[in-house]
């Protein structure tokens, strides 16, 4: 639906390209990050960027279902961040 709009289509396409590039750049911090919390922070950022990509795709394709997809991705990202940070603390205590 957004493809027949003269103004909105290029803006949303540019936003999609920028968000995808930023997600790839955050992967650098996941690989290189000096400590484990750096990697957790970078993975959290990637999760938020993927939420933004899903919303931009919902605007681009005109299908409102992808907004629900972004909400589910946000919930999964929050649960995974809590699980990994708790695992980091407990793992240090056990060893």
């Amino acid at each position, binding site marked *: 639906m957004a493809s027949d*709009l003269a*103004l*909105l289509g290029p*803006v*949303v396409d*540019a*936003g999609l390209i*920028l*968000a995808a590039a*930023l997600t790839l*750049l*955050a992967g*650098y*911090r996941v690989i290189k990050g000096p*400590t*484990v*919390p*750096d990697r*957790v*922070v*970078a993975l*959290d*950022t990637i999760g*938020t*960027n993927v*939420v*933004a990509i899903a*919303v*931009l795709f*919902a*605007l681009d394709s005109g299908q*409102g*279902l992808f*907004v*629900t997809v*972004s*909400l589910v991705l*946000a*919930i999964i990202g*929050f649960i995974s*961040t*809590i699980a990994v*940070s*708790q695992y*980091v*603390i407990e793992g*240090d205590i056990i060893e």
Partner: protein
Amino acid sequence: MNEIHQLVVAALVVVGSFFLLVGTVGLLRLPDVYNRMHATSKATTLGASSLLLAGFVYYGPQGAGLTSLVGIVFLFLTAPTGAHLISRSAQKMGVPLFGKEAKWPGEESD
């Protein structure tokens, strides 16, 4: 969908993309895990919330637009919680603060 409607959605998309850019540059360039967590948890949440607000303006107050509002509330509730948990686990792991003179409150400065 008239011109004003498109202009509002495009402006919100531009603002959201700018805040995503600021957050990721902060993640890549800041020197410490606490500084990086600060940059990403504020700026990236603002960016994603602005994009969700663009989705609300695009889809109207029913269906997908209402889901966008629920997504904004969820992000504003959970992003500070996750950032607090990450910084607390980093402190318990003993990740040092950046700089020589910075200390945790309660620590004796030798």
